[in-house]
């Protein structure tokens, strides 16, 4: 069974190119275009990996990650991964749990 992956990215172009790339590497890719809808879909569960942009409308990537950890952390099977073009690595670490 193909690993299931949620890509949360507000930039339409990147959403297209990244999901094509990830699909070609053998993932079943679903997408969300803002933080809020991304969180709602991820919280329903069923994803092996959530790929988050950091600067997202309505709810930023760190918040989505933190909220996900809080609601599903104790029995989590999915991991979060942050991608961004200009956020310092230090801040990424500070929000991991």
């Amino acid at each position, binding site marked *: 069974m193909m690993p299931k992956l949620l890509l949360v990215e507000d930039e339409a172009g990147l959403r297209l190119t990244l999901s094509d790339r990830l699909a070609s590497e053998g993932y079943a890719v679903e997408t969300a275009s803002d933080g809020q809808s991304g969180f709602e879909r991820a919280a329903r569960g069923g994803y092996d990996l959530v790929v988050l942009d950091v600067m*997202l409308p309505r709810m930023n990537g760190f918040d989505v990650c933190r909220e996900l950890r809080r609601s599903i952390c104790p029995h989590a099977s999915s991991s979060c991964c942050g991608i961004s073009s200009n956020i310092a690595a230090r801040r990424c670490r*500070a929000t991991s749990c």
Partner: protein
Amino acid sequence: MFSRTVKFVRRISWPIVTAAVLLALLATLATLQYRWLGDVSEAERERMRTSLRARASDFAESFDAELTRTYVAFHVDADRLDADAAGAIADAFARWQASTSAPAIVKAIYLFDGAGDGPGHTQRLDAEHRTLVASERPANLRTASPGTEVFEAIDARVPALVVPAPRVTRIQDGHRFTIITDPSAISRAIVIVLDRDALRTQLVEPLVARYFGDARSSEYVVSIVRRDDPAEIVFASGGNAPGAPGAPAVVDARSADVTTGLFDVRLNELNRLAAPGPGRGAAALHERMAITIVRRANGVDAKRILMAAGDSQGAWQLRARYRSGSLDAIVARSRRRNLAIGLGVLGLLGASFVLVIVSAQRQQRLARQQMEFVAAVSHELRTPLAVIRSAGENLADGVVEDGEQVKRYGALIRAEGRRLTDMVERVMQFAGIASGARAQPRAPVDIRALVADVVTATGADARERGITVNMRQHGAVPPVVGDADALRSAVENIVGNAVKYSPGGSVVDVSVGSENGRARIRVVDRGLGIDAADLPHVVKPFYRGRRAVDAQIRGTGIGLSVVRSVVDDHGGELLIASRPGEGTTVDVLLDVAH
């Protein structure tokens, strides 16, 4: 799994601490200065008072020395007085006249003999004929009459000097003579009536000039009044006779910085005269048999005392003060002046210090804004670049192969390329405005067409986010004279902002109309809105509202500053009204061509 607590300690603001310390130092300096200036003023006042007191007492001493010399000069040997009274007194007068510098001060000389008022008891000296003429006793001298009472050496009211001439009894006892003044016998006295005007012109005025300087240029004001009747003014500096029109104000007792007594026979002056050596009037003194001075104090207790040096008794009182005001006032004025200058300097220091801090903070803020600008611009540039690169990688790696997909990728790369160009364009535009470069030449611009173009161009982006942009026109809009490219970019920024900050599914209304002879472009959105605190600042370069930052909406903070510059350049008006959470209305008013 681990949790991590990040403790945020409020950072101490060093500039504020430094400012507080420096301000405290300034305040301390000001206090010290105030106090020390007070000490200096105190010392200055003391110095000035001492100097004035020295002048006053020198003056009084010189004046009294002349009186004492006169007093002593008229002591006549009792035997000679018995033998030839007229000759003895005339000789004494002649001797005195030869030695004095103020010969006019003696108006008349009487010989009083006994207490009676009649001519038998009073004789007046006729100096020219060296005779004594029987005369009436002047009315104002009756109280000074010798009698059983002891009389005073000075009668300030007349004024007169009363020189006692007691009769003596000699008792011969072998080789020794004992001379006894006979107190029971009716007393005699030589009364020297002084001329008040001559006293003033020949004695007081030269002495005032000597000790206090010329009347007109002197920095002192001097008055002399009678001690027993202060309303009677003997002398007031300024050159005029007292009471004459234009006479200078008399120094009253309260405003006087220094007062001293004068018009007295002084013991120390007698001592000086008695000592052998050169000196006017001194030569004859040691030959005399006796000097009698009888003087009552002017005080209420009427004790008999002899006046010693430095004693500030006397029939007259000298009052002196500084011409420019009383000593306290002068010192207070100079203290105020010094204080004002000192505090002014400290104030200037404080003000420049505050200016430096303000300008440093402004610099800091500007630097921070520019850093944010650079970060924002680079992010805005990186996003399209990231899209283009990842699309390119997908194409190169054969991730997409079928024709339809490849076409989509081509369109994507083209769109992102245009976005990059726009971005660069906007930065260049801002840089041009910031550097003050002149815009294109002015020409009539059809505002309606320009706005319609912009709305069409924004259409694709808006549709993608589910936002509808409506355009309406209210009546005919005359052309506006201006720079079409600049105006277009201004309208692009406004409409672009409206779309950018609107939620999906909302409507942006753009309308064009004319109002009071001006063209109006109005853009209304139902987006985030701007906080009241941010509203006055949104047109500043690099400034971004809190709501926009919180919502993670990308932007550089230069859009509205470009709009403002363009509108200002066209002499127009930019109005922004906003309700946080409900939306923003932007109006641009431009003058139309006539």
